[in-house]
């Protein structure tokens, strides 16, 4: 691996001298150390130890794969007026072992909102979008829907009433679910029971 020309040119003379000295000292010290180790040890035991260390790294990778065993991840998109229902739905989804992503949790002060949301949607499995009269014209919601379509994510529209006209054009061919405000808790539970049976979500 060689140094890129730009890196050397950007270095100050003092930094360059420090690097050269460090490399020289490192090489001299290492070679001197190597000469101190008994020859018969180098061939066998050290080799075994280095193989063992490599296996340790491989084992760590395997274990971490198991640790990151995939939960279905869901992005919740909703207008501000539906924040209560969204919070209840999010809590219920988490209790049913789904990973829930909401805009507030992934966007920190100073972040580019559209960029962070786009990144989040790229990584999730399913977009659940809560819709009411006003949300059809919401820029954020429409952008989130478009991003999910572009990344071929499953989209589940959730309406507050049985009215297909609430669906934006981009998803008006999708089957929607309804959460009624009168039986909110029961509707949420029924909705989650339905999505758990869907193969691509489970």
């Amino acid at each position: 691996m060689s140094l890129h020309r730009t890196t050397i040119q950007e270095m100050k003379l003092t930094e360059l001298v420090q690097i050269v000295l460090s490399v020289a000292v490192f090489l001299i010290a290492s070679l001197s150390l190597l000469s101190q180790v008994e020859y018969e040890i180098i061939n066998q035991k050290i080799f075994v130890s280095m193989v063992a260390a490599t296996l340790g790294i491989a084992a760590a990778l395997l274990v971490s794969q198991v640790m990151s065993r995939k939960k279905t991840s869901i992005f919740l998109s909703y207008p501000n007026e539906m924040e209560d229902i969204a919070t209840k739905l999010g809590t219920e989804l988490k209790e049913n072992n789904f990973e829930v992503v909401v805009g507030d949790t992934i966007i920190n002060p100073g972040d580019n909102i559209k960029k962070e949301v786009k990144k989040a949607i790229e990584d999730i499995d399913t977009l659940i979008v809560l819709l009411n009269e006003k949300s059809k014209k919401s820029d954020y919601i429409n952008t989130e829907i478009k991003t999910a379509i572009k990344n071929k994510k499953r989209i589940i529209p959730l309406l507050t009433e049985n009215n297909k006209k609430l669906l934006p054009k981009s998803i008006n061919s999708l089957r929607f679910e309804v959460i009624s405000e009168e039986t909110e808790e029961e509707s949420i539970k029924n909705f989650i029971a339905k999505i758990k049976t869907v193969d691509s979500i489970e």
Partner: protein
Amino acid sequence: MIDVDWFELVASDELKSFGVPFLTTFLMIIVKMVSRDNSRERGFIKKYMKRGNFNFGLQLTVTSFSIYLIGSLVRIRSLVLSGAAPKSMFNDITNTFTTIGLLILVIISLSFIVRFLGWESKNRESQPTLFYEVILPNLIGIYSLSAVINTLN
């Protein structure tokens, strides 16, 4: 059925040569992965395959140095207690402290190299630093640990 004499195995050189490096690298990586906040990332690669989780080389070299230092002091003590001949004891002590000094030089020079060609070079928007930041220090760290645990009795 596997018949293993665990009592003898625990005291064996083979367990020391294999078990210590295996456990050390395994636990170092797992502890780093688990202790970082990766709740914002999704997927195994984005969550866990970060350079920070794998650059343990410097720590390993420093640990090897500590093991060698303490192990050497214990060995010198046992030589003194056993009444070994002064000349061989003197040679042993001299070799030990020479090795310790060389190890210190290796660690300091390696940390300079990692700093300039690894971490700081990122600020110059230059080439990949994976080799200087992760691979080289890890190779040296693993070799240091392997040499030290097999050299000390």
